[in-house]
């Protein structure tokens, strides 16, 4: 007790007491800034809580989860027997994202290698700026491009009745995802220390040999992370997919079939449903599903990229 009291004496004299106005302000700011820091966590939790609040009751009381994931009939506005099956919607999202990745992965990785390893000086800087600008075009504009430019082009080129289909949305989504993947992949290449390249070059390796044998293996995880983030992006894209897929519930058998995506379903139907109705809650249930999937993809990408930093 007495030991605890001793510093008080000093404090009363005011000699060692640092707690002046500046000290209190410092403490206050530290608290405020901390609140800002944890806000991201609070928002993520908030997002989950609020979509779960609107959707979870329906999942527990009414929804047959097996049917939800295995039925291909999404007929929420059927008055007698509404069906909530998202299999066809998952197929729609997966087919479009899959095709987008077929387009985006080779191009973005190739572009990243060119920008990061071959190009130099002004060329490199200009290409980087260009890629950054490409990534900035809003998704609704991409959707409009799918609708007004790609649609007639596909009809004419392939002689099909409808140009709003997996092919259209896949290409649009690929073009959208590629710049982002290029930037991340280029960062991953940049993270490979220069001494790796110098060591290989000192052995007489050509530029390409250095890239192929040294840089790419060393950047493997970062590149995988870039691909994963691209997949996450494709999965969650809404407006472009809404406008370019044709929006018909359908399990596609060819790239010329129209499909409908999970995200687009919410965007198209949320405005027409009454708050609290089964249909409304079913849309929030899709939201929960999307949240979980993208959360897992982002977590995986983070773990993969982190792996490269440690190793």
């Amino acid at each position: 007790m007495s030991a605890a009291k001793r510093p008080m004496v000093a404090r009363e004299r005011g000699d060692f007491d640092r707690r002046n106005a500046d000290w209190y302000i410092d403490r206050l700011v530290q608290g405020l800034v901390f609140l800002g820091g944890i806000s991201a966590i609070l928002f993520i939790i908030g997002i989950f809580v609020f979509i779960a609040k609107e959707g979870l009751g329906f999942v527990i009381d009414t929804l047959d989860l097996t049917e939800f994931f295995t039925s291909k009939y999404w007929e929420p506005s059927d008055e007698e027997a509404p069906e909530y099956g998202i299999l066809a919607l998952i197929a729609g999202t997966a087919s479009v994202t899959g095709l987008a990745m077929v387009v985006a992965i080779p191009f973005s990785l190739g572009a990243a290698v060119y920008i990061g390893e071959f190009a130099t000086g002004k060329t490199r800087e200009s290409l980087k700026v260009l890629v950054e600008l490409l990534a900035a075009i809003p998704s609704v504009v991409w959707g409009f491009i799918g609708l007004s430019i790609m649609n007639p082009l596909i009809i004419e080129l392939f002689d099909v009745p409808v140009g709003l289909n997996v092919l259209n949305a896949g290409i649009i989504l690929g073009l959208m995802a590629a710049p982002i993947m290029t930037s991340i992949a280029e960062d991953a290449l940049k993270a490979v220390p220069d001494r790796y390249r110098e060591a290989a070059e000192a052995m007489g390796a050509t530029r390409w040999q250095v890239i192929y044998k040294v840089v790419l293996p060393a950047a493997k995880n970062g590149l995988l992370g870039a691909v994963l983030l691209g997949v996450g992006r494709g999965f969650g894209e809404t407006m472009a997919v809404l406008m370019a897929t044709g929006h018909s519930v359908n399990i596609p058998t060819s790239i010329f079939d129209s499909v409908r995506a999970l995200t687009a379903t919410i965007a198209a139907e949320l405005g027409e449903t009454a708050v609290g109705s089964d249909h409304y809650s079913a849309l929030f249930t899709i939201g929960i599903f999307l949240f979980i999937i993208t959360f897992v993809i982002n977590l995986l990408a983070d773990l993969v990229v982190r792996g490269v930093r440690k190793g």
Partner: protein
Amino acid sequence: MFEISALNQRNKKVERLFRTLFLMMVLLLVLPVIVILATLIIKGGPIISFEFLFTSPTDGMTAGGILPALIGTVWLVSVALLVSVPLGVAAAVYLNEYAGNNWFTRVINLAIINLAGVPSIVHALFGVGAFVIFFKFGTSILAASLTLAIMTLPVVIVATRESLAAVPMAFREACWNMGATRWQTIRRVVLPNAVSGILTGVILEVSRTAGETAPIMFTGAAFFLPYLPESIFDQTMALSLHLFVVSTQVPGVPEALPYGVALVLVTMVLIMNSLSIAFRVYLRGKKKW
């Protein structure tokens, strides 16, 4: 001994081959977009006039201009910035100046990555569930802007954090040695040296926010309104949603109209981004340490 061997020549050839291949990939990535932009300009350019930018839509949105959508976008972006900039800067200051390298910081980072990665339509659902219904803001500029602010928060955080990290540690140490508190150091030394970097992030944020459509569809943006918004509790039109509406929801729209709207939106976004990039390049040239 130093002659070019056959092997060397073959290696060189392979290298040239791949170099060309990858260059083609870059060009194929960029080319479609140039074609697209050219199409937007050719088809949308002629409709753009003073009247197009500064009058309201008429005849069931098949004629007239885009003024209410432009003003609505300015409202939405401004209110969103009022929330996301202070919050994002605070978060970045915490992460760069206070947080240790521990599990808690990792969780925050993960949350930021996820905030950027969650689909925009899920943000919209959150906006509806939280701001429109739970906090009873209704469909309003406030609800839409808050949704946008949360969605684009990572843009501000990442940019601010980078520019804070670029301020040399020695600057802080010198200030602490003079007896300044942490906050005094941040306010007088760290932030002034980072403010231009933060500004580039804010410009990027403006561009991102202006282009988003899904998050505002159900939280505050309306297809058509005969009046302009007067407070943050009103609904509003928005340029991005207007493009969606005139290109998919309204019958009998003349072909040039949606092209014109798209052109205005893209121009706005690209100007913002170019500004941000130019600013960044200029700062890099000016940097003395």
